[in-house]
């Protein structure tokens, strides 16, 4: 499948409009990791611990990344790209894939297609475009294209891939380090290895590494699943650490959010809660509901347990929620003992009837002497309540 890769290098940095040497960080649990860094800083890698990055580039300015804002900017770009092709995948921040199969009628030549795509991507992101068969070759083409330029790969990719470093492989940092430790620097070296030893060393990722190094990538394109996102947020009048105050604010946001969809008979299936502390730390938690929450009260119950279990990193000055999934009320799981209860209720009613009328009213047939030759001796009627 022909795929166009749109690579927006240093996307978080460009969102922050930073010019000097800087490192954008993000938090994962208690750890701070590198999200992006200025091109001039050498020895840094994405997802590297910040301490390690600072040890290598002490002069860099540290910027706490605002992931939700970056994604919202990126989604705007993806929305614009959907004007060109219905198949748009946002694989990562600043990395999008476009399915271009069948667009020949609209754009007879590749240059026209690239021109049309470039028109919808803001200039400041200096997009690099790569067109090839498969995601990984398209990504490599975009990576190797000049800033504001493009590269189209056709035919045999061997000569193109041979000299590329192993760092371009979309595998874990651990695997990349391991490749380096084994002295494997280029894709040519990796592709020359048999599959067995690679899988023995890297597990399932070994097979992927080998295929990618040979330019084989049959990963399908995962177009964006469009869901209505409802976002509500509020800037608090003063910073607070009080859980009650946060919950009251979230409740008011929930009430406001429900106005948008409750009349359609929809409830919340999943949402993301977020806060921002006065010193710029972000807190985010995804909340999923087993059954859609059909009113603010039921949503708040679940939200409360999440907020209590995952404490805030500091005094909160802004908070919000993003509803990422809506759904209709689904069939409820009935009690397995429903019939038992129904029988109990029935017996209770029958007893009441007996008490009121003074004698048994409902009977069941009971075997007395089922073997008897005398027909009237075989069965008898017994009150149901006994």
């Amino acid at each position, binding site marked *: 499948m022909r795929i166009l890769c749109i690579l927006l290098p240093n996307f978080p940095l460009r969102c922050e409009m930073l010019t000097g040497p800087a490192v954008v960080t993000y938090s994962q649990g208690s750890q701070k990791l590198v999200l992006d860094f200025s091109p001039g800083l050498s020895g840094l890698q994405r997802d590297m611990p910040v301490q390690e990055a600072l040890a290598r580039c002490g002069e860099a300015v540290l910027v706490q990344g605002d992931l939700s804002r970056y994604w919202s900017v990126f989604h705007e770009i993806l929305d614009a790209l959907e004007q060109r092709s219905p198949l748009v995948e946002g694989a990562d921040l600043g990395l999008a894939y476009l399915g271009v199969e069948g667009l020949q009628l609209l754009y007879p030549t590749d240059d026209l297609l690239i021109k049309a795509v470039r028109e919808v991507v803001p200039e400041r992101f200096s997009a690099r475009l790569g067109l090839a068969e498969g995601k990984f070759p398209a990504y490599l083409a975009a990576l190797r294209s000049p800033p504001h330029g493009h590269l189209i790969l056709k035919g045999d990719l061997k000569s193109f891939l041979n000299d590329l470093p192993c760092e371009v492989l979309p595998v874990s940092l651990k695997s990349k380090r391991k490749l380096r430790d084994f002295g494997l620097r280029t894709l040519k070296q990796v592709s020359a290895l048999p599959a067995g030893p690679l899988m023995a060393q890297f597990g399932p990722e070994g097979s992927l590494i080998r295929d990618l190094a040979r330019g084989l990538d049959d990963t399908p394109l995962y177009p964006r699943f469009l869901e209505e996102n409802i976002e509500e947020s509020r800037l608090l009048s003063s910073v607070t650490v009080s859980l009650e105050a946060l919950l009251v604010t979230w409740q008011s946001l929930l009430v406001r959010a429900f106005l948008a969809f409750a009349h359609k008979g929809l409830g919340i299936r999943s949402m993301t809660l977020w806060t921002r502390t006065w010193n710029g730390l972000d807190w985010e938690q995804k909340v999923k509901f087993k059954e859609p929450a059909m009113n603010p009260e039921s949503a708040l119950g679940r939200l409360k347990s999440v907020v209590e279990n995952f404490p805030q990193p500091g005094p909160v000055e802004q908070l919000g929620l993003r509803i990422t999934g809506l759904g209709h009320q689904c069939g409820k799981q009935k009690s397995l003992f429903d019939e038992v209860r129904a029988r109990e209720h029935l017996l209770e009613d029958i007893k009441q009837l007996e008490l009121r009328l003074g004698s048994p009213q409902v009977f069941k047939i*009971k075997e007395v002497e089922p073997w008897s030759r005398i*027909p009237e001796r075989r069965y008898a009627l017994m009150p149901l309540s006994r």
Partner: protein
Amino acid sequence: MVSNTGKTLCPDAFKPVNLPEAVRVEENPAGEPAVVWLGKRQMVKSLEDRWRLDDEWWRSQAISRMYYAIVCQTGQRVTVFKDLLQGDWWRQGTG
């Protein structure tokens, strides 16, 4: 003879099922049912089966019955028996 102990289990609680109902039957010379009154007079078309039941002879009230499974002219199937001790006819389901 074993006498009836008169011992019953909660007489108000249990009710008999399939008790015989008295029925008017006209016999033919052989003593078999020829006409049965089931609301109206019905001729017996055929005798499907017959069997004799003698039981509880050790009790004060022994049981001795001659059962007939009959098909009436209308096609209705009925089981009747003659109490051989009293000489009267009864209708009873046998299922």
